[in-house]
């Protein structure tokens, strides 16, 4: 069954926390109705398959509900910290699931030192930007800062130009840039998500970099 919900309903789910903790069925219904489909879509945005996205959304609902008492809603931030937290859980679960699949196929072992170097590079690159995101220590129980959030920089003309630039890109290019900018996944892992090899991902990022630079020079 397809159900439609307005954004306004999402904005109110944090207010249901006391009712959830008390186990009120109506609160559980409201949260699931408001969040489930959006969490599935969020997982797909992070590159999960449709089938995996559903399980990831269910996992996020479970984890968030389990930790409801302990969640620091101040840290989760935003208008609706509960939903915010769930999206972070979705993002972490998507990355973890992807990594588990890669491990299953033994790809990580085969990559050996190259992957370690690549991951270290990714971590080092963003260490100064956001210390919350550590490529080597992703804790699925501790939602990290997802790519849906900025590092808090003011919307400078460059950032505004970037937002416009991102709008002109294909879904795949935008996803590659977002994941690369996040610094949590390696080029190889991003490639796995979008069906490219790591060299192609790096090449794509470089091309987009050149493209953006050229556009800025023409302004």
């Amino acid at each position, binding site marked *: *069954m397809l159900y439609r919900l307005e954004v306004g309903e999402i904005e109110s789910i944090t207010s249901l926390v006391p009712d959830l903790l008390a186990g009120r069925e109506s609160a559980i*219904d409201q949260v699931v109705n408001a969040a489930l489909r959006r969490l599935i879509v969020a997982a797909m*945005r992070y590159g999960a398959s449709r089938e995996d996205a559903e399980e990831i959304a269910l996992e996020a609902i479970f984890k968030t509900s389990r930790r*409801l008492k302990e969640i620091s809603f101040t840290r989760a931030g*935003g208008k609706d910290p509960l939903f915010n937290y769930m999206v972070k859980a979705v993002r972490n679960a998507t990355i973890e699931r992807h990594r588990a699949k890669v491990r299953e196929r033994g790809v990580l072992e085969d990559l050996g030192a190259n992957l370690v170097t690549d991951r270290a590079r990714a971590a080092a690159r963003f260490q100064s930007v956001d210390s919350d995101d550590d490529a080597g220590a992703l804790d699925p129980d501790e939602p990290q800062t997802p790519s849906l959030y900025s590092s808090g*920089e003011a919307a400078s003309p460059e950032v505004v130009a970037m937002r416009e630039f991102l709008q002109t890109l294909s879904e795949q290019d935008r996803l590659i840039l977002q994941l690369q900018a996040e610094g949590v996944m390696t080029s190889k892992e991003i490639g796995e998500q979008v069906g490219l090899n790591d060299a192609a991902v790096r090449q794509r990022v470089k091309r987009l970099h050149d493209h953006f*630079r050229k556009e800025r020079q023409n302004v």
Partner: protein
Amino acid sequence: MSDSNDPDRENESLRHFLRIVRAAQPNGPDDDQFWDLVTKGAEDVDVSEETQKEARNRARLALALARHELTLGNYLSSLRDTAKLSRDAAARVARLSPDAVAEIESDKSRLLSVEARRLASLAVALGAVKAAFMELAAQAIGRPTSQTGLPRLARIDRDATLLESERAVRRSQTTRSDSQPETYLSELSSAFDDEKERTRQA
């Protein structure tokens, strides 16, 4: 103009570019773009009644865990009731005796003496959620009642009701597992995944 002749400069330029990409990401729920990103295409996603029901079940289960209302025994017992499965049938699937299942369900069993693979089979057959199952199993192992050293004779007497194969498993596992609850949980986790995968493929 490209900086490709100067690798250091080019790398710095690329880092700066990626920082801008990051800065250009929406600011969370306070930013309209956040909703665009999260909900874009959501209207095309069909969510089945079954999935919605499962989502409610998971939330309900997690909240009950948070309130410390569940034990491994009553969780498995309630799953078996929901599945309308007799104890004998559940025991057959897990290759345990009905008495052993009854002991597990009443939280009287020394969990470490139940073979991890068989306990995992039971949990998967009953449709347990892995995260909840593992949390409750860890609790059961750590619970004072589970750790109380029962007199050896009492243990042997209780085992007398078990299948011969179960007794053999218990004998071989008792010494090793008693000192290694973490190893047991690790085996349980792997066995759960294997069993789930086996069930999926069947």
